[in-house]
């Protein structure tokens, strides 16, 4: 169980942030990821572990001034 972008979500056998992005169908070039307030380097997506109860933010670019 994870909180993704503020919503509780359930995934089974999910190990790394890369797995999460794949599960969500999100291309890694389009987003930046934060796990419990830590910014995950793109190179570490494959290795950065996810555990039950983590809070994940999947961030992208939007219109701004």
């Amino acid at each position: 169980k994870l909180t993704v972008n503020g919503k509780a979500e359930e995934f089974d056998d999910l190990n790394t942030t890369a797995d999460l992005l794949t599960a969500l169908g999100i291309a890694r070039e389009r987003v930046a990821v934060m796990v419990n307030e830590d910014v995950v380097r793109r190179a570490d997506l494959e290795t950065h572990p996810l555990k039950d109860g983590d809070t994940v933010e999947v961030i992208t670019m939007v219109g701004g001034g």
Partner: protein
Amino acid sequence: MSEQAPGQMPADKFTLAGRDYTSRLMVGTGKYATFEEMEKALEASGCEVVTVALRRVDMDAHRRGDKNLLDHIDLRKYTLLPNTAGCFNKEDAIRICRLSRELELGDFVKLEVLSEQKTLLPDPIETLEACKVLVKEGFKVLAYTSDDPIMALKLEEAGAAAVMPLGAPIGSGAGILNPNNIAIILEQAKVPIIVDAGVGTASDVARAMELGVEGVLLNTAIAGAKKPIAMARAMKLACEAGRLAYLAGRIPKKMYATASSPPVDF
């Protein structure tokens, strides 16, 4: 400005953190009615640098397969300038910059640490401290600040790639409220000075450029106009006009007159 129209100066390039640009107008991607309108407005403005914000992916929109901003910005044409809008302390601002770096879409950041919601005026202390950290981490920091010349200098000394004093509060459309301060900032600056925020219409852009600033950054003035695409073109023309007038050396202001016609001789 490809072919030389009469009166055109040789391409007067604008260098920002080592990168050369032709257009001195930088435009935001916020507050447009549609992505299509944004695309047309950016094109009509002739800008080459666009600001963006970082926010959560909208999961529902994503699941619906909706397009998002990056689908509508040609990264070959535009340099992205992620901002830290909405951050009211340096920690949040620094975090957003680190996130933006992971998108690997360039190392320019618009550092913007605001004091409170009503005026959205920058917090000078938080901005300066965030700037120091970000410069150390290798970011090209374009620092949004008030038009206070002292803070502008401190930001330059802290390694900012450009200092961006406000013309007036964000989205106020009030134009250049204190041209004197901008002029003082320019006199002491060794990095590009860009007026950011508060511009309301084309003549504001021309006035800023005539002061000698390197560029103008705006968003609301275009996105909020009744005809944004036409206003975007007006801003493009005004930016070029102001820069050219600055280079052309205006006549001095005088109280009294000098005739433009020779005295009557009959």
